[in-house]
């Protein structure tokens, strides 16, 4: 019975493969194939949902083992990563709930996406996402979860970019993708620390091994996974990605940022409950970040005038509360809250278009007049506390300028030192040069240029030669060597030194030097 768990993520994956291949070979194309694509995606996810509920039922009857081992994925010396799945507890509850929500959203999408150009692409990505998300939840080890985590992130990118010919969509999708990579790096660090200190990447073993970890070790692991969770669940300072991600269509926003993916961060924290319990600092961090995000989202949410932005900030605010609950140790409450929130948010996202009718002649209750008059607070809220701009100012712009300087250095120093290819021998650098040459040649023919001096006779010739040599010496060595050329070279050197000094004193270089010094020191 436990082995059925494998099929839960595999079925939507097979559906994605079929839809993908169907599209590639042209079998699934246009409006006529819509029902086939929808049927494949819906059927596979429904089957997964059915299996998840069956396993949940047997688990409630205490008939399941805690995990199911399919085989070994890879091993290297002491590192061994299994393909294993969780068949017990909160993971199974979430798998059942999320698969049900996925089925509902898929059914909703069939009508919503009807006659859209990317209909088949949408269902391909959604099926792939369903598979990745169910793998993320059910995987028995951190590497499997990370695998699902990454694919879910990629699917999110692909669906934000659903209308890929819109430049704004491309910018938003890229920004969301890059922001989430910070969380991924932290996840990998968490896996590495877990392996280094507990010699396992299996979730169940890791939970058991938590007892033997020192507070410092537990804090290290917990904070690494917490940062990954903050990034995935749009907590500060990563919150702005959420407002950009709602660029995608309503069903994809629902599935990624309403019902399912956005909760992955909280799930990860819940999964590592014993480790967090051993790390008070990490628990405090959860409370602080969660609290700040909840406050931030509340304040920003007040000034949002479009339904999707309102929902985005409501999402991040609620997730902030979930992190507070985890940080305060109310784990069971957080799990119930997570499930309830996923359900209610699916409803609110899918009914978002009717909000206008709901608020018509029934406006949302205004804020207290004391707050309402604060112009500075209003501006901060309207501008979302300038988080995006602050990121640009502190990170993106300095790095971009540094890259430009390095590229300049590459082009003007390294390329010259390494030797750049010369043009072919029989070629010219420009037609203008040729034109000038031709014109000047014709001028030369008309008016032959006078030589330095004319003379007759032997004495005259000797004098002329001597004069020419002296003139040449003066012209090339004395005037050329010590005159204008030297001054120009000196001036250029001075300018270059000034530029170099200015460049080196810019903050980006100071930061770079500090980073280099620190990396050398440690």
């Amino acid at each position: 019975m436990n082995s059925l768990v494998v099929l839960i993520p595999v079925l939507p994956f097979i559906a994605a493969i079929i839809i993908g291949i169907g599209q590639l070979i042209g079998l699934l194309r246009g409006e006529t194939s819509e029902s086939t694509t929808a049927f494949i995606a819906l059927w596979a996810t429904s089957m997964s949902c059915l299996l998840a509920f069956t396993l949940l039922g047997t688990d409630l009857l205490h008939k399941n083992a805690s995990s199911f081992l399919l085989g070994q994925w890879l091993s290297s010396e002491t590192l061994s990563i299994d393909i294993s799945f969780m068949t017990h507890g909160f993971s199974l509850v979430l798998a059942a709930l999320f698969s049900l929500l996925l089925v509902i959203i898929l059914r909703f999408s069939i009508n919503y996406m009807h006659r859209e150009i990317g209909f088949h692409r949408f269902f391909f990505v959604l099926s792939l996402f369903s598979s990745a998300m169910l793998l993320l939840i059910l995987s028995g080890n951190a590497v499997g979860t990370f695998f699902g985590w990454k694919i879910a992130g990629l699917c999110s990118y692909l669906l934000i970019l659903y209308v890929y010919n819109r430049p704004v969509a491309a910018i938003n999708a890229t920004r969301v993708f890059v922001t989430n990579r910070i969380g991924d790096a932290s996840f990998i660090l968490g896996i590495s620390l877990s392996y280094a200190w507990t010699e396992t990447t299996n979730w169940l073993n890791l939970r058991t091994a938590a007892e033997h970890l020192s507070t410092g070790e537990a804090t290290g692991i917990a904070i690494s996974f917490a940062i990954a969770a903050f990034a995935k669940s749009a907590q500060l300072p990563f919150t702005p990605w959420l407002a950009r991600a709602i660029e995608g269509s309503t069903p994809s926003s629902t599935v990624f940022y309403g019902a399912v993916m956005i909760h992955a961060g909280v799930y990860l924290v819940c999964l590592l409950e014993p480790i967090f319990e051993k790390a008070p600092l990490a628990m405090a961090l959860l409370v602080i970040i969660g609290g700040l995000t909840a406050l931030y989202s509340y304040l920003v949410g007040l000034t949002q005038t479009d339904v999707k932005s309102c929902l985005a900030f409501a999402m991040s605010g609620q997730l902030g509360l979930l992190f507070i609950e985890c940080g305060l140790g109310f784990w069971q409450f957080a799990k119930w809250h997570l499930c309830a929130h996923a359900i209610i948010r699916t409803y609110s996202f899918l009914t978002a278009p009717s909000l206008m009718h709901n608020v018509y002649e029934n406006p949302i209750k205004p804020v207290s007049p004391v707050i309402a008059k604060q112009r500075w607070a209003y501006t901060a809220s309207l501008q979302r506390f300038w988080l995006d701009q602050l990121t640009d100012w502190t990170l993106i712009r300095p790095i971009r300028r540094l890259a430009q300087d390095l590229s300049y250095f590459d082009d003007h120093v390294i390329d010259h030192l390494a030797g750049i290819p010369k043009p072919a021998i029989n070629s010219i650098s420009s037609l203008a040069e040729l034109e000038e040459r031709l014109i000047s040649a014709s001028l030369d023919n008309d008016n032959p240029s006078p030589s330095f001096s004319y003379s007759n006779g032997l004495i005259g010739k000797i004098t002329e030669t001597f004069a020419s040599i002296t003139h040449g010496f003066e012209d090339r060595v004395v005037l050329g060597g010590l005159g204008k050329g030297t001054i120009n070279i000196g001036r250029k050197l001075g300018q270059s030194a000034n530029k170099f000094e200015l460049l080196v004193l810019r903050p980006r270089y100071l930061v770079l030097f500090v980073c280099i010094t620190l990396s050398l020191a440690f």
Partner: protein
Amino acid sequence: MNIQESPSNRSDNHSADRAQIIAALTQLDAILPGQAPLLQFFHHNTLHGFQHLPFEQALAEFETLTYICAHLPEQQSRLFYQQKRINDDDLNTALARCPVLQTEQIACNLGGSLITRKELYKITLLFDLKGISVSQLNWNINELDALKNLQLDIPLSVREQLLTEGHPEHLVVKQLWECLLNKLDLQQAILHPETLLDLPLEQAEEWLASYQALTATPAPLAEIASRESCVLDDLFLQLGDEISLRSIILTLSGVDVLESIRPQLIRICAAVLDEGVAAWSIPERHELGFYKAWRTLINYDANPFLHELPDWQHIVNELPEDAIDTIILQLTQLEIPKNNWIGYLRRLSLELPGWSGLINWRQQQHPHYITNQDATPKLADYLAIRLTLDRLWLNQICMDLWKTSATVSALRSYFRKNLAEFTVRRYLYQGDLPEYLTQLAESLTLSADPDRQNRAEWQQLADLIWIWQCSPMAEQNTAHTVHNSGWRLFRLCQHLGLTATQLQTATKDELLALLNILDNFNITERSKIWLYAYDGACGGQHGGSSAD
């Protein structure tokens, strides 16, 4: 001699400017879409300002003003034809409705085949007969075997007609191509744009000579260089009616300032027009109105500081209390010629027609519309904010790239001194350059720093662009080339079912006359025919003579 303006004169001028702007804003009602709030929205004729004109003229004027094509793309119409939503009868009827086209007139007689204009029109409606680039020609020949196989879009009946004489397909195609090149006095040379990178001397001399002959000047390159100066002047002359300063900066830097200011405009406009979604409205928006409410908020906004906008404190501090005064101030500061102010404001309001349309709907069309804490938005408020944001952000682009302020005179004088840079930037962002030049130009624009002297590098690249212009591969030399007239006639003859044998008696002029007919039947004419045909196919009657 400087004439000092007296205070009373200044005041009169200012009043006249204000009156001029108020009148201009009132006139915008005719061209802005009637964009109602979503709950009030119903289908509306977006050409309402042109409904007094005959239909085609209304569309043409609308297109000229907004750059929005009022017709379906031709590709879409062809798709309708393939889907049989438009059929041959519809097209014939539509063509017959235009006597100017003289559809039954014989266009030419080639080898005993009488070709009517109607046949030519139908072919050019159904199939793409545009000229192509050298690279596309190479691709067609090398990768798609265009000189061995008949074109893929030739209908079956025409294909059979072409092969009736029993010759193999590759021979028919090859003979046709050679015959056409022969008749048109063209020579097929395998050219590749990258050969221009290391241009052989002999080739350069040959091109220069032919270009000299074509332009009838001894120094065509010098003339091209001087022509750039005229292009620069023309660009600034278009400012106002045709383009905004944003477009000029976009043309020369590839940076669209609207990308930066659009989110801010949307936020502030949405905050002002919100009817109850947000729990927190702009403080005192009802008492202050749109512009004044924004003016009080900008003092608390960290955006100008975080974006390191040059001179932002001064620009924000000098904002007048009145929106019209702000418009006058910003137009003056940007140095938009006074004669072009009306056109400039029209152009700005059309750049984001949705928001301007919505505000216009509230101000001019429904002044008694009631909402909670109504800020009574006006077009003047919107344009004053837009101009201020434009000035702030355009200044930044100009400072970053050229160390100048965003004023007409500063930009013009910078580019007059740096014509080579102007050439490179203009060609690069027009998107016409071949790949090898695009790469070079992009890399130079990335590495160019106003602190560093890159004049020689700009000049070198501008030279390379001029070489390319003199070469047979440049777009402006495409009138009578293998890849333009040669390729177009090659495709046309195949669609007409003509073989080399039938072309034996044809002259160059006769063949070029065929192309001339196609050229005169341009995209506007074709779109008109497609529209009539679609109307006919839908069973509707396009009876109205006006744009309503």
